């Protein structure tokens, strides 16, 4: 990079003319990935990418109009052309009194330790060695592991800077590292796969042995799986699956969806939407969370947001536009998110977690007695409707009999509705763990689910 990102965004903002408002968001990332296969390197990729997204807001009597354009080319000519394109795009928007940039709100950003210098200098040979060690451990973990679909090490550095004519200036950087494996277990003609992983901010925070053991367990314990009979039963979701459920729930608590009539929780603030023991928080200040960040995608400080407390819906997450649209005392919760430099700020949760219960995972199984443990789900994007609340997903897992794990089960679905599931939570585990994604996981038991199988 020839120019520091924060200088670059400040420069673009300086090109504002007349009454127009400008926000520039720049991201620089550097990623490396090693994949190994059967003791050799299969692929080794290095990637470096930069980009700038420019938002232009044209004020007017009936409201403001917003336009957006982005470029992967940071040359002066490309940046100027992108600004002109964003301006032109703004001229076609419908004036909207709520559209605009975030205004500084006085909330001080937290100092979060998300960056490890060691990632930039970690030798490629060591990355390869970690991936090979992961593959070796998975193969050695069980005689039924015949091979792996993949064993990999990956790391990345992300640097972000944002500036606007409203006086916002923000920047941060963070690192992330992971190892990931998919084991293939075979017995006769049957094949089952299972993944394992470990994540951290730097390589020394990774636990290769745990990742390997996870892949071995999740693949081998599915061997011999059969299709269960259809029935209504209690389902225990393992932490990885619970994290996916929380991400869906987070989507329904998005202030923009609520205001646009696309959330099943609209008009339900203050109501008992879940069992009294259920507490949901979005906490991007928790440095353990993969999604932790000091600033949101509009440059406001992030904050800890209680969403459901004692089962009662407390409120929604907002960016500055959705907060203005909501009116009254609603303010941005520092929840503007972007997919990258190619998109405008939307609204979303970053680090959802459930306040853990008192039961160990084993105690949850014992409390449930008879039911099904679900270790993975599929078809979430096709079978869960966050507007109607209809919930139906493909699943695999293990029978729970007499309070402990039994035979493996596959090719079945579990169904209910998001509304009912929150009110039928029967046990919350104490095993909270952060996962790669926007939410944490723990063991969660939900009764009254329809299992469809044979």
């Amino acid at each position, binding site marked *: 990079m020839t120019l520091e990102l924060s200088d670059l965004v400040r420069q673009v903002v300086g090109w504002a003319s007349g009454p127009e408002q400008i926000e520039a968001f720049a991201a620089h990332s550097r990623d490396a990935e090693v994949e190994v296969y059967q003791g*050799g390197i299969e692929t*080794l*990729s290095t990637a470096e990418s930069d980009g700038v997204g420019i938002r232009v807001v044209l004020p007017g009597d009936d409201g403001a109009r917003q336009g*957006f354009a982005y470029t992967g080319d940071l040359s002066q000519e490309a940046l100027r052309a*992108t600004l002109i394109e964003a301006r032109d795009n703004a001229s076609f928007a419908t004036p909207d009194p709520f559209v605009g940039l975030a205004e500084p709100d006085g909330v001080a950003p937290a100092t979060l330790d998300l960056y490890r210098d060691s990632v930039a200098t970690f030798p490629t040979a060591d990355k390869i060695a970690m991936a090979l060690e992961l593959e070796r451990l998975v193969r050695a973990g069980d005689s039924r592991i015949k091979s792996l679909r993949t064993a990999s090490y990956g790391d990345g550095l992300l640097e972000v800077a944002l500036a606007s004519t409203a006086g916002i200036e923000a920047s941060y950087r963070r690192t992330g590292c992971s190892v990931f494996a998919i084991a293939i277990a075979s017995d006769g003609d049957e094949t089952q796969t299972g993944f394992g992983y470990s994540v951290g901010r730097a390589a020394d925070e990774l636990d290769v042995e745990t990742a390997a053991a996870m892949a071995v367990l999740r693949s081998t314990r599915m061997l011999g799986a059969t299709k269960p009979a259809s029935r209504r039963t209690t389902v225990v979701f393992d932490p990885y699956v619970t994290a996916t459920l929380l991400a869906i729930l987070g989507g329904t608590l998005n202030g923009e969806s609520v205001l646009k009539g696309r959330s099943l929780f609209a008009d339900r603030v203050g109501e008992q939407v879940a069992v009294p023991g259920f507490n949901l928080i979005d906490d991007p200040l928790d440095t353990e969370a993969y999604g932790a960040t000091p600033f949101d995608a509009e440059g406001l400080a992030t904050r800890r947001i209680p969403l459901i407390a004692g089962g009662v819906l407390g409120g929604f997450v907002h960016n500055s536009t959705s907060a203005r649209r909501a009116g009254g005392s609603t303010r941005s919760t520092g929840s503007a998110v972007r997919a990258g430099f190619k998109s405008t700020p939307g609204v979303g949760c970053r680090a959802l977690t459930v306040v853990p219960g008192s039961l160990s995972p084993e105690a949850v199984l014992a409390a449930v007695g008879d039911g099904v443990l679900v270790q993975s789900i599929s078809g979430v994007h*096709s079978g869960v409707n966050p507007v109607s609340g209809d919930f139906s997903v493909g699943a695999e897992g293990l029978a729970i009999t007499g309070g402990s794990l039994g035979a493996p089960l596959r090719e079945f*679905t579990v*169904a209910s509705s998001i509304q009912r599931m929150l009110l039928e939570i029967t046990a919350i585990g104490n095993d909270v763990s952060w996962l790669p994604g926007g939410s944490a996981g723990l063991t969660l038991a939900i009764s009254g689910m*329809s299992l469809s199988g044979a």
Partner: protein
Amino acid sequence: MPVATDALPALIETDVLERVLGACLRTGGDFAEVFAEDRVNNSVLFDDGRVEELSSGRERGAGVRVISGDTTGFAHTADISERGLLAAAEAAAAAASKGDGGVRTIALKHRSVIAPHLVLKPGSGVAKADKVALAKRADEVARGRSGSIKQVTVGYGDSRRRILVANSDGVLAGDEQVRTRFVVQTVATGDTGMQTGFHSAGKTIGWEMFDEEEYDIEVIAQRAADRALTKLKARPAPSGKLTIVLNRGAGGTMFHEACGHGLEADLVMKETSVFRGRVGQRVAAPGVTIVDDGSYPREWGTSAIDDEGHPTQRNVLIEDGVLTDYMWDFRHARKEGHGQSGNGRRQSYECLPIVRMTNTYLLAGTDDPANILSSTESGVYCAKLGGGQVDTATGDFVFGMVEAYLIENGEITEPLRDANLIGNGPEVLMAIDAIGNDFATGIGTCGKDGQGVPVSDGNPTLRVQGITVGGTAT
């Protein structure tokens, strides 16, 4: 109409490519490739009754790949000057190094390609005001269907993607891919809560897409609105094993998941496909023929060449129920001594090419669609499916029903709420017992290893015995 074209995107000079490829092999690699891409995207978002946003973007860059034995080195850069490309070449070559490779001279030979069809009016040349007007009209039409339609989102998008591929085997090929997409999403509110509707259209052509009757904006908007309205009266989907009748064009996703992914050579060779070692064997009921055809004119998954510079082609995967071949990219074809099939695709220059589907079709049979329905005593009629997902190792797959009805005594009766279906690929292919003489296609974005590429699916009216419906009604 296929058209031969000699035009090569002017992204990188041929002599620069030759020097960069030579540099790639200096550390002993067996094969080197430069993939350059220049992409322009434009979109209009009409939401909540307003033109919410117009967005435009441009990205340009190159990915450099070096293969040495079974090892692939890859690096990409947004700097496509000779200096930038040489730096990427050095990074990719370092990863796939066997020592000193000496000096190799690469002589590129421009391969003219056959464009599957002509593009008349690329979206990048259409006035923004016209795009906005189109989105606004769709909003009006959808809302006009009923006062119960409370929310409408309309998305218009166009892209122009120019690619250039050069490799150490001397291949030099280029392509320009123009795509147009239109999506309408609706929310309807009634006594039973809220329901959603969705309809989309996409073609690898320009603005002329909207001149076709099937892609008329009003038709797309009406379908999206009616899907949500119908479901307001829907009852919960049943739970358990049932007979399914799939509408033409509704169920391509099912075969994309049920067998498409399992026929990708990379998954087959890593022993994670239930179809491994089954070429020449019966894997589907008689009459079932599945093709993947990246050269099919105008379809969403169509291109002249794949992202490794190989011409796309019609590949027969299953013929009359017998497995004939898998889909291949360069790397796996070379390893197995098999020909490439034009299925090496990538999301962008930032990604390595992998084996992907293009347009995957289960071809029409001979049965009268009306008879298929009337001869079905009871079951579920799927008018439209949503997305799906498969575990290729077991063949178990799911897909969502977004418009479905009960079949009672050979007739379509009550609408059903959304639910997933779950089945096993090999079992479902054998359980097809009726194939209609009609056919239609649908579009989607297929995700694999974190990369999304445009694909289309197609099928005639079909009946499948015994798929598990994941509803809540008993």
